[in-house]
């Protein structure tokens, strides 16, 4: 097998711009990264950082109008940018599938869950009614739903939030996708249920040899579950690298601020939190410089006027976009 075929996803200079009443809104710009087979990658950022738009653009799920997508998304050799709806539909389910954030609204409330799983099996894989039902029950069992044959005919309203998210995962897995995009899969679920769902995703990834993109605002979710992390700010990648490198040897001040501003269970109570002053920028009024410069304590004139590109850090596959990076901590830290 050549090196190229090890790469499941190649995103190159991707940009998604919405046209709004206030002018063009660059929700995602200049995003490039690659993903290997059987890898889990985390995309983290605050609301409005473009992480959801990026994941939807990769899937080709952007709205039909008022949006311009440029660049390239090569998914298992298939170009998604500019592809026709029919072509993309041929890839959804078998090549790439998505688990959406809100399990309450992503299921049809008046359709039995079994039918919702059957749907893609029958349409996409051309299974017979009987085969599809058997496979759907198998899938329900796979995602850990107790008494799957019985639950097959349940309505979403009869299931709890955690169970519904399992059903959503079962639907996504129905046609054995090579890439699973999970957009905030556990937001809104309780911590104990969140742990169950994340463990399930981990286990399924190994069992089905999938790659998983975990999109989240919660650094705790990606810390132990991903091999690499992409940190996004104002529609751009500001730091990317192996999970450990990003957590321990980050160079971009925003990454550090993000890590330090989240309260930790291991800290004593009443520990003063480090805050980032100000708010994320208005994407309609981005400056030519670094988008984080107005909130950054290290910012210089250059940061305000000239945009930093991603540059390699000491570690392989670790890069950051900053003119005044934090000193490297390699060797100094334990």
């Amino acid at each position, binding site marked *: 097998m050549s090196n190229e075929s090890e790469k499941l996803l190649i995103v190159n200079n991707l940009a998604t711009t919405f046209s709004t009443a206030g002018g063009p809104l660059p929700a995602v710009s200049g995003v490039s990264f690659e993903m290997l087979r059987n890898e889990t990658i985390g995309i983290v950022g605050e609301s409005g950082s473009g992480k959801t738009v990026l994941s939807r653009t990769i899937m080709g799920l952007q709205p039909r109008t008022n949006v311009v997508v440029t660049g390239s998304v090569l998914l298992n050799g298939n170009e998604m940018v500019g592809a026709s709806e029919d072509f993309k539909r041929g890839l959804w389910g078998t090549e790439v599938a998505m688990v959406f954030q809100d399990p309450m609204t992503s299921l049809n409330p008046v359709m039995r869950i079994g039918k919702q799983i059957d749907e893609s099996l029958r349409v996409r894989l051309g299974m017979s009614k009987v085969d599809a039902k058997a496979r759907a029950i198998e899938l329900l069992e796979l995602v850990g739903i107790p008494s799957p044959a019985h639950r097959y005919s349940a309505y979403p309203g009869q299931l709890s939030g955690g169970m519904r998210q399992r059903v959503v995962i079962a639907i996504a897995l129905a046609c054995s996708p090579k890439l699973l995009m999970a957009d905030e899969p556990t937001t809104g679920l309780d911590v*104990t249920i969140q742990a169950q769902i994340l463990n399930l995703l981990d286990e399924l990834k190994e069992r089905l040899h999938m790659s998983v993109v975990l999109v989240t605002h919660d650094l705790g979710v990606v810390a132990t579950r991903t091999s690499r992390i992409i940190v996004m700010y104002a529609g751009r990648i500001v730091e990317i690298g192996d999970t*450990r490198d990003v957590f321990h040897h980050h160079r971009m001040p925003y990454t550090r601020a993000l890590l330090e501003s989240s309260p930790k269970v291991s800290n004593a109570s009443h520990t003063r*939190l480090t805050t980032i002053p100000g708010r994320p920028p208005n994407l309609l009024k981005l400056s030519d410089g670094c988008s984080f410069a107005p909130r950054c304590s290290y910012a210089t004139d250059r940061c305000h006027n000239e945009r930093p590109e991603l540059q390699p850090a000491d570690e392989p596959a670790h890069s950051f976009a900053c003119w005044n990076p934090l000193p490297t901590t390699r060797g100094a830290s334990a």
Partner: protein
Amino acid sequence: MTDTTQPLLRVRDLQVTFGRGRHAVSAVAGVSFDVFEGETLGLVGESGCGKSTTGKALMRIVEPSGGLIELQGIDLIKQKGRALRNIRTRMQMIFQDPISSLNPRRRVKDIVAEPLDCWKTISGHERDVLVSDLLSKVGIDPAVYGNRYARQFSGGQCQRISIARSLAMRPKLLICDEMVSALDVSVQAQILNLLEDLKREYGLTLLFIAHDLAVVKNVSDRVAVMYLGKICEIGPADALYEAPAHPYTKFLLGAALEADPDSPMHAQVLEGEPPSPLNPPSGCRFRTRCPNATQRCANEEPLPQEVAPGHQVSCHYPLSITRK
């Protein structure tokens, strides 16, 4: 308990039941705790455990069906009409969704002034001075933003305005119900720090209700853990997190995700989901998911017992506490 200091808020066997007869759900099933002047009591639990209902029952936004709520020695459940309104000025609540808890079509300064206008205890000029002062305290420039409408603000700013409004009547007790859970981490940190500053400045006592264990630990002096309408463990924040005595607390802490790639993967994940409060298990309510449960747990409801000073647990078989 032999506490010499009089608690600011005393809650005994608080019960809230929704519906009647066969459909009765006991959302809060006998909750007792004290909140002492100047402290922050954190109330954590998963959704449906009754933590928000407890907060609302204290304000009598929902009516308790039994029990005792005493604020500074006054029984709140017995009060009604004007007397109740009078006492309510001493306690205020901040809600989860900052945007929907403010009227989008009102000006910020009018929102903050509303409690003052209701009570008309001070002159119009004093009122304006106080409103400006409150807005600057929460980090919103009254000269620039005072006349703007609530809809023009982001979630974090709306939560600042909610805090200013809640402080207008100089309350003794502030009940914060999931006040930062809708905010991004960087904004959340700003609001949590602001809350700590204001607590010190105004001598506030807080009841901080949230599901996020890290957030609760950060602000609380003591923490109470709720499961299915009951408190299963209450104790000093640091001690409770370090050595939980109730198996449920241990699982809850184990499931909390630490933003550290080297943190150990949870050895044990709590299986299943909480049972329906329509039909709670007999005896200990956690027994259906508890690995240590025995027949005794099904027959006999565990009563709170002290495992360390100020640290109480409702479990027949509390986990051993490592004493320092």
